[in-house]
């Protein structure tokens, strides 16, 4: 499907989606509460059939924390970026997508490790890279580490 067709189809499902096309792929922003149901629909809908999750980016948007999920369909080869933001910086929580795409399992662990976003329903959320004793979430913009970080 082309970007236009995707847009039309998706806006029929939910009315609070925001579409942006600055950049490479069509970007759709979804509220955290609709994330999982939208993801399920994206995968199971025969016209969308997004079965290949190839990039899972945690982002610190400044005010909010969020994830950007790149999805592709191996049948139709269209690509969509799902964006979700949560404004809770203290205890951010999002739905886990690992049941829909098992590829998200490790990626969510990574995002948890670097951004501190907890994924509801993830069975094994641990600090994958940094180790349990590490304090803070390094990829957040407000992370300060005077020992290991030298900023010119």
């Amino acid at each position, binding site marked *: 499907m082309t970007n236009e067709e995707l847009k039309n189809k998706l806006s029929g499902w939910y009315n609070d989606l925001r579409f*942006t096309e*600055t950049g*490479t792929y069509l970007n759709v922003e979804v509220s955290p509460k609709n994330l999982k149901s939208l993801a399920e629909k994206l995968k199971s809908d025969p016209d969308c059939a997004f*079965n290949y999750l190839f*990039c899972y980016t945690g982002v610190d948007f400044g005010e909010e924390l969020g994830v950007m999920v790149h999805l592709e369909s191996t049948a139709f080869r269209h690509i969509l970026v799902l964006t979700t933001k949560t404004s809770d910086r203290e205890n951010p929580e999002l739905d886990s997508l690992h049941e829909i795409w*098992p590829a998200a399992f490790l990626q969510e662990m990574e995002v948890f490790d670097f951004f501190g976003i907890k994924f509801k329903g993830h069975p094994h959320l641990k600090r994958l890279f940094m180790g349990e004793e590490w304090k803070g979430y390094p990829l957040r913009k407000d992370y300060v580490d005077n020992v290991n970080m030298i*900023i010119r």
Partner: protein
Amino acid sequence: MGEFLTDNIKTQEYFLNMGPQHPATHGVLRLLLQLNGEIVENIDMDLGYVHRSIEKMCEHDTYQQIIHLTDRLDYLSSHMNNEAVALAVEKGLGIEVPDRVKVIRTMMSELTRFASHALWYGVNAMDIGAITPFMYGFRERELINDIMEETCGARLTMNYNKVGGVRYDLHPNFQKKVKDFIKHARKKLPDYDAVLSNNIIFKKRMKNVGFIDKDNAVLYGLSGPTARGSGVSCDVRKVHPYSAYDRVQFNEITFTEGDSYARYRVRIREMWESLSILEQLVDNIPEGDYKVKTKAVLKLPEGSYYQKVESARGEFGVHILSRGDKLPYRVKFRSPNFANLSALNKMAKGVKIADVVAILSSIDIVVPDIDR
């Protein structure tokens, strides 16, 4: 008597640390194997032993400065990683590179791919227990490294790409050396088959080990030879062509068996395909500039940019989130190894310890790429 004995004997599962320092993990990767005798029940991973936080570093570097950091991700396909960043930024800025650059990048990618697969061949053999093929793999790789060194100035961390072209023009010896290499490789590749591919022990070790079916391969986000061994058509060179891949003839290699041996055969066949791509391009390098002039300070317009390339291990992606600044807001490297590793637990459930080693080497991990 029997009852008496079994009453006092307790069996329990035990844990074995494979890594962080282990010959089979190709670096500092820690796998916690939950074992029942020799049978693997579960694998837990502990990563980050070579984490350098390259993604964070990128947030403080300009776009030209990012490129050399990607050499240090998957150091065996460093040229493809460089290319991904260069292509992403070029696309975002709307820079059209000359044909010569495209062809040069394609040839370098294929040389890198061959070198990477040759090294993998040796390392794979070593993991299975045959040590001699290791040197055969290095013999071919050495020639490519020489070509690289002559043109790019370094053997491994080449840093040959830049936004808007490549750093130097091709060395005058380049074409002759590549031709010599193709001739040499065509003569030596049949040895690979005789020593390993047809070997009954090797076949027994690789066949029906680490099986993953086609649907699961996609769902687990596998890419590259690992996914193509399961019959997934996912070659970025075919699906989303970049550089000069749309003008060369080559086959996408897929096998449907989905086991370690299928993945092995994909890579062996890919070496032949790389040779044929090189052969098509080596005499048809267009004349022209090897780079275009770019602004001194590059500012990517606001938006999220993604560029995928086919690296030796699968789909390497760069996700750049820009806010119109000269520094990127967020850079994420989609590393094929990290995605491929996520299927390890699925592949390796219920196999022997020796098979974990075989599976690990059949998905061909490079640890710095996993840890980034």
